[in-house]
């Protein structure tokens, strides 16, 4: 299950999907909107995706994880559109016979999402808004005098 959606994400649906009689461990990661980032008071995040390619990249990283670790199943759902403080923007669930594989594959998945999946977030903060960019690059002023493209993030 590798999906981009405008709806709220249902954790239990992902966990049910990866539940497997051969698995002794399930690890999940949930990214939630944090109320602060680099000293700014965050109001919300607004996610945008290139959805067809994002789902393709999620599927690809899932296949890569299956090659690298002995895992049973993986599910990733990323939400797009506005995501309020404490709400989940992304959920990952991984099942494996043994816990080390589940932890490592789950960590790999979130790092890969942040590295290569075509999804972007705009941070709406008190006083402006800014597109967040995790790849290195020059600042890009957008829509407000104090905004720029930043490499930090108010989810993690």
């Amino acid at each position: 299950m590798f999906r981009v959606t405008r709806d709220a994400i249902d954790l239990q649906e992902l966990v049910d999907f990866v539940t497997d009689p051969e698995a002794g461990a399930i690890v999940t990661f949930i990214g939630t909107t944090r109320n602060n980032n680099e000293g700014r008071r965050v109001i919300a995040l607004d996610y945008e995706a290139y959805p067809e390619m994002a789902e393709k990249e999620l599927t690809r990283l899932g296949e890569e994880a299956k090659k690298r670790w002995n895992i049973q199943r993986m599910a990733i759902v990323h939400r797009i559109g506005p995501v309020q403080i404490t709400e989940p923007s992304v959920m990952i669930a991984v099942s494996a016979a043994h816990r080390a594989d589940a932890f490592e594959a789950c960590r790999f998945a979130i790092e890969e999402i942040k590295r290569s999946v075509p999804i972007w977030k705009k941070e709406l903060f008190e006083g402006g808004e800014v597109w967040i960019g995790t790849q290195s690059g020059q600042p890009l002023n957008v829509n407000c005098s104090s905004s720029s493209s930043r490499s930090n993030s108010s989810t993690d």
Partner: protein
Amino acid sequence: MKVKIKFFAMLRERAGAGEITKEIREGMTVGELWRVLRRDYPRLAPVEMRLLYAVNQDYVAADYVLKEQDEVVFVPPVSGG
């Protein structure tokens, strides 16, 4: 020949469009197309961040030679998660 170009995130806002169709010459690379677009859309010109190129939903190198009906996306630094 024609290609489809989609803009996302900061590039969409700068271009003022989410999707355009563009007539290009045979043999043009995706890197060359980006330089052409920066002339067409002056607000893209100051964009100095490191872009990646995607054609038909796969990352490609700057020297990828475009084909009729390709779907081209210039990928700004991603920030999902």
